[in-house]
Every structure is written in C-alpha cells, then in structure tokens.
C-alpha cells in the first residue's frame, strides 16, 4: 500500500461508514414508521449541532471507545483476539476508584495521575492472565478473555457492595471521587475532560510506537506472519505476544480509569455499556490504524450521542443505533470480500484481523504441486 493510500483509504472508509450508517438508519426509520427527517435532525442535534454539543456529546462518548478501540487494534495487529477489553476497562476503573478513594484530596492532580496509573496497571495485569494461558497452555484467548470479562464484572460488583461501597451503604456504587481528584475539563462549559486529549495523544503515540520503534515493528510482523518473524527476523514471538496483550489491557484499563475520574466520578457495575465490544467495531472501521481509530471512535461516539437525542426528541428507540452499527460492520466485512474478489492484486487486507491461515508459497495455487 502506498503512502497516499495510507491516508486516503481510512478517510474513505470513515466517509463510507458514515454514509452507510445514515442510509441504513433512514431505511430502518422509514420501515418502522418514524419520521426520517425528525429523527435525523434529532441525531444531528445530539451529535454535531454546536461545538458544545460536539464536545459534551460526541467527543465525550468517543473517549472510552477510543481507549478500548486502540486496545483492540493493538492486540489484533499482534495477532491476538482480545475480546476482554470490557473486563480490562472495568478493572481499570475499579483500581482507579480504589486509588482515588485512598489518596487524600490534597494530592490534587497527582492523585488523579496515580489513579490513572492504577487503572493502567490493573488493566495490564488482567490481560496478563489470558496472555499466559495462551502462550503457556495454548488456551484460545477468545474464550478466556470472554470469561474474564464476567469475572471482572463480579469482582467489581463485590467491591462496590463491600469495601468500596459508598458510606450510606444504600447503593451498589463507590463514594463520589473528590472534586480535586477529578479529571479537569478540556473545554470549559462542556462536559469534555482532558481524557479525550489523552486518548488522542495515545493514539498518536501508538502510531509512533508501531511504526517507528523496533518493538512496535516486531509486534506488527508477529501479527502479520509469526513464522517469518521468527525464522527470518529472529523475533521472540512468545515475548512479543505477551507484551502486546498486556499493552492492550493497559490501554483498556486506562480507559476505564479515565471514565471514572472524568465522567461518572463513581464506580458501579454497569459502568460500561459494552465499550469493549463496540471497540471491536471501532478497530475494524479504522482498519486497525491508531490514527484512524480517532475518527472511527468519533463516528461511533456521534452515533451514540445522536441516539440519545433521537430517543428524547423523536422517540426513536436507542436500540436502533445498535442495529445501524451492526449493519455497518457487516457491510464492511462484505465489502472486504467483494474487494478481494475484484482486485486480488491490491493489498486490501492490510490491517485485517488475525486468524487467516498462514500463507505458503509451496502449497498455495498457482504454484504447481510437487509432481
């Protein structure tokens, strides 16, 4: 893929996704008997109508999606199917809450940073478990990460009803985080916090890491062709896999810490409405490219913000956006297949998730079989 393609392809993808989303949404609205115009205008109102709306709505919603989207993208680039971003985010939030409660409010921003670090470490540690199971015991990470999500949920639920519960012991949630320890606002007058800026910086950082450092290069090559990485490059594939998994978990954990110190200010079980799963869609749309993930997270953030508005103003059930997102993913998958059929010479699969069979010049057609 050439340099120019590397920039225009993601933009085209995002544009295409946006157009598809609106098209599918309109169709669904029409079928269900809603006023398409009212609904779409409500969507716009909720997502893009003013800078304040963009900040408090779209960008705010995009932030956790960007953290988890980066987590998933990094993992997929390394050939790891991390479906556990949900649990890693939750435990990151938990650790951050615990830290924020433990440190005195006088710590101020230092305390906030400690909380974020706690989240990062917790998320990474939670990802270490499936990583170890994978490289040492060959356990499919798809299954182990899904299960660890549930365990994480239970751990959180236990804590918010126990040691981390708010003082009146009435609700299953943590006490509110002190004002001084919360993430500062990025834009005054909006709900947007600096976590968004942090996420964008991390996206840039991830891109730099993947493309400029030797370590990031090893990660990418391991995900693309682990046999060649090992044989031609002398890469320690096991080490790279574990480190990538932990990095992925750390990103998701940080996302949880940010969410709790910047938006909810308290921990409760249902903190994540499925960020870890939407993250898969975010990563796919971005074709696993960290910079494109910013745009992708914004697209999904806009859909989510607009969904609330649509529900409020036009009485369109919020679930419809879930349908739209799913349709966009399915259409993107289908378009990849079409693309492969039409143009087998161009490299459309750059950034496609793992699990394709490893290529072989000896067994694949049209090289003739050994006579």
């Amino acid at each position: 893929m050439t340099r120019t393609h590397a920039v225009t392809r993601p933009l085209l993808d995002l544009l295409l996704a946006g157009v598809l989303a609106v098209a599918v949404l309109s169709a669904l609205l029409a079928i269900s008997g809603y006023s398409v115009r009212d609904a779409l205008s409500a969507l716009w109102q909720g997502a893009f109508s003013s800078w304040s709306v963009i900040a408090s709505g779209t960008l705010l919603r995009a932030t956790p999606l960007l953290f988890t989207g980066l987590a998933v993208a990094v993992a997929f680039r390394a050939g790891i199917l991390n479906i556990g971003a949900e649990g890693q985010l939750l435990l990151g939030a938990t650790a951050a809450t615990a830290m924020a409660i433990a440190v005195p409010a006088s710590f101020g921003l230092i305390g906030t940073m400690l909380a974020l670090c706690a989240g990062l470490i917790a998320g990474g540690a939670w990802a270490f478990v499936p990583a170890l199971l994978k490289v040492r015991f060959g356990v499919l990470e798809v299954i182990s990460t899904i299960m660890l999500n549930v365990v994480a949920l239970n751990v959180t639920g236990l804590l918010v009803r126990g040691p981390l519960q708010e003082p009146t012991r009435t609700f299953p949630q943590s006490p509110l985080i002190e004002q001084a320890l919360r993430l500062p606002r990025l834009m005054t007058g909006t709900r947007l916090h600096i976590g968004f800026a942090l996420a964008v910086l991390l996206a840039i950082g991830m891109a730099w890491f993947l493309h400029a450092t030797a370590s990031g290069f090893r990660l990418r090559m391991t995900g693309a062709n682990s046999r060649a990485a090992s044989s031609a490059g002398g890469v320690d594939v096991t080490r790279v896999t574990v480190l990538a998994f932990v990095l992925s978990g750390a990103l998701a954990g940080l996302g949880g810490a940010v969410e709790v110190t910047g938006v909810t200010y308290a921990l409760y079980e249902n903190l994540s409405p499925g960020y870890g799963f939407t993250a898969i869609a975010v990563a796919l749309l971005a074709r696993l490219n960290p910079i494109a993930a910013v745009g992708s997270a914004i697209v999904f953030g806009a859909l989510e913000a607009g969904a609330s508005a649509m529900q409020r103003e036009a009485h369109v059930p919020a679930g419809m956006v879930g349908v739209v997102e799913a349709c966009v993913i399915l259409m993107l998958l289908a378009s990849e297949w079409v693309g492969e059929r039409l143009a087998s010479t161009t490299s459309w699969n750059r950034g496609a998730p793992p699990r394709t069979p490893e290529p072989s010049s000896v067994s694949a057609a049209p090289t003739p079989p050994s006579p």
Partner: protein
Amino acid sequence: MTAAPLADFLDASIRSATPLLIAALGETIAERSGVINVGLEGAIIVGCLAGLATASTLGPAPALLAAAAAGVAITAVFALVAIGLVADQIITGTAITMLGLGITSTLYRVIYGDSGAALSAPTLGPIGIPLLKDLPILGRPLFQQPLPTYVAFLLVPTVWWWLYRTHAGLALRATGENPAAARAAGARPRRIQLWATLFGGACGGLAGGTLVLAQVGTFAEGMSAGRGFIAIAIVALGRWHPVGALMAALLFGMASALQFLGQALGLTIPYQIFLAIPYVLTLTALGIASGRYRAPAALGVRPNVAA
C-alpha cells in the same frame, strides 16, 4: 439443613441451568464443526422477544418454536457472512450480538410503546411427572419442571447419540478437526458448518424463549444478560462434549442459585464469589488441556478460500 431449602436450591439451579444448557448444546455442535459463534447472545435475545410476541396468539408452547425460528433467522446472517463470505468469525459474531440487542430493543419499543411497562406473556407451568415428582429432595427439582427443562434433558442424550453414533456426527467432528481430511473422505465441510451453526442458532433462540416463557414471563431489554457468553464458557468447561455441557451448565446454574442458598443459610460470603467460581474453574480446566479434551483443532480457523 432441612430438605426444603436444599430442594429449593436444586430447583433454582436447574431452572437457571436450563436455558444455558440448551444454548450450550447448540454451541457445542457449532464449535465441534469448527465455528465459534459469539453472536449466540443475539440469537438468545431475539428468541426472548419472539417468544413474548407470539405467546398470546400461538400459546406458550408453540411460541417456543417461534423463538427457535427467530434464533435461526439471525444466525443465518452470521452464517452468510462468516461461512459464506469467510469473514472473521469473531467480528461477525460481535456484530450479530449488537444486531440482536439493537433489533429487540427497537422492536420492543415500537410494538409495545414507550411506557416500559412490563408486559406479561402466558407462561408454561411446571409439568409434573407422576410418582417421580414426589421423591424426596430430588422430586421437585427434577420432575416438576416446565417443558423446556425436559427438552433440555432429552436433548443431551440426543445430541450425544447423533454426534458419536452417526456418520453425520463423525463427519461433523472431523470437519472441526481437519476439514481437508473430511473433504478427502467425501464430506462437505462448509455445508456441515452451515447446518451446525444454524442448529446452534435455533438452540439459542429456544433458550431465549425459555427465559421468557418458562421463567421470567416478560421481556426486558438486554435480558439475555450475557447468557450467550456463559454458554460459550460452558462449552469449553464441558470439553465440547454434550454430557460435559450438562455438568457445566448445572455448575453455572448452581453458582447462580447459591446466592439464595447463601441467604437462607445466613452466610456472609458475597454471592459474586459464587458466580465467579465456574469461570475460574473453566479457565483452570482449559489450562490443563489433555489430548482428548482440547478444543477442536480447526475451531475459528478460516478455510483457505481457494480450497
């Protein structure tokens, strides 16, 4: 401990386990053929809604079939993209789950309005097996259950027999291990995977119907509550074997029922620990993989498109 709380506990365990077992049996078949369907959650939730929507017109028992049909329908989309277009199974499955949750959410509101009031459906009452139901302790839990529980119980030996005692089952197992060998022996791996996946979808839908029609009696958005993922864990803990799925489902059911038992016994152990135990057990069990009990070798592997 008196008999009554124990019987209550077993009863609650089996009731919890039933939808999980049904979904897990379907997913076992799918995974044995090499397809991992994380869209199972989507199949369950559409089964829930379909069961609710058709219960008053069809009656609760036929509504179960409608639920199964809904599961098949959404899983057909999964099969088209993941098997037909050879897309990544995980991403496709995730999309299907999102689709199912979104569609049911939307349709529920569209059909039943914004009020959010609980709508109730005619439910299936327990069917008692004469004589057996009066057995001490085990009588009520095992022999006085609604229809789906008996279906689940019967499904276990049926799936077992089909999987291990028919050529079709052998071909399916071979497909999940080494599709090339299956093809060399004259089988058609893609077709096998398609039917296996659709069966899994039917079971998922049926499980959802069970939730609504034999337990809760109503629908709520997201009521599947991750059962699709639990079912996937059950398949793994049960070592991809139908009887194993039965044991594992019971384990998960018991863990969920333990919270009530704990309260009855005045235990102060938080119930989350009980809920988490089956998962930790599954992970440990997966770690100790021995030759016969590991995942199908070709699980989740996309076939070479040229083949």
